[in-house]
């Protein structure tokens, strides 16, 4: 009895891995990178259409609201807080690059709402990183 239980416990991981063979094929970091570059793209690659659409709408919405509030997109670093802001902005992937080169965003924050806008843009990047990691978890089978 105890031997059979031990056997089945030892076989369980093997059975689990054989039940999900497709999750380990190919480049496992593709959804992570795609999700970072384009919000929701990682979930679209994993065929999670509704989740991807909601994530894309939320992240793009937050980024767009930040721009609409005349938020600042970080381009140069003067202190550690600016560095953290830049790291958050970089989380938006291509959105950040497009915004930088298109010259979107305010040069200076002069009103309170613009300060909120800057935070919206930073948080959009951070949320995008969370979404990209979630897509990676879907890819590796850690999440369904």
């Amino acid at each position, binding site marked *: 009895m105890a031997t059979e239980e031990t056997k089945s416990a030892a076989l369980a991981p093997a059975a689990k891995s054989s039940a999900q063979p497709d999750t380990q094929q190919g480049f496992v970091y593709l959804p992570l990178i795609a999700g970072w570059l384009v919000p929701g793209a990682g979930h679209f690659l994993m065929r999670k259409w509704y989740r991807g659409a909601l994530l894309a709408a939320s992240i793009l919405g937050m980024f767009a609201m930040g721009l609409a509030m005349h938020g600042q997109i970080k381009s140069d670093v003067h202190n550690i807080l600016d560095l953290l802001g830049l790291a958050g902005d970089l989380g938006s992937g291509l959105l950040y690059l497009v915004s930088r080169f298109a010259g979107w965003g305010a040069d200076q924050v002069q009103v309170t709402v613009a300060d909120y806008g800057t935070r919206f843009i930073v948080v959009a990047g951070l949320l995008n990183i*969370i979404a990209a990691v979630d897509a990676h978890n879907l890819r590796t089978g850690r999440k369904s």
Partner: protein
Amino acid sequence: MTHFSAVLLFSLFASTVFGITMRETPLRMLRYAAYCFVLFVGSVIVLSWLMFLIAR
């Protein structure tokens, strides 16, 4: 845009992402997103009243 509408939008977007990424089934995602939204907005209201009372 008022400050409170900014809070509502921020809470809505952040809660949606939290709900989808932190839970596995759609019903649990919805419940967690609603929970986060209420916590975001509720804490803002409570802290705002606290700051108002301290400032008086």
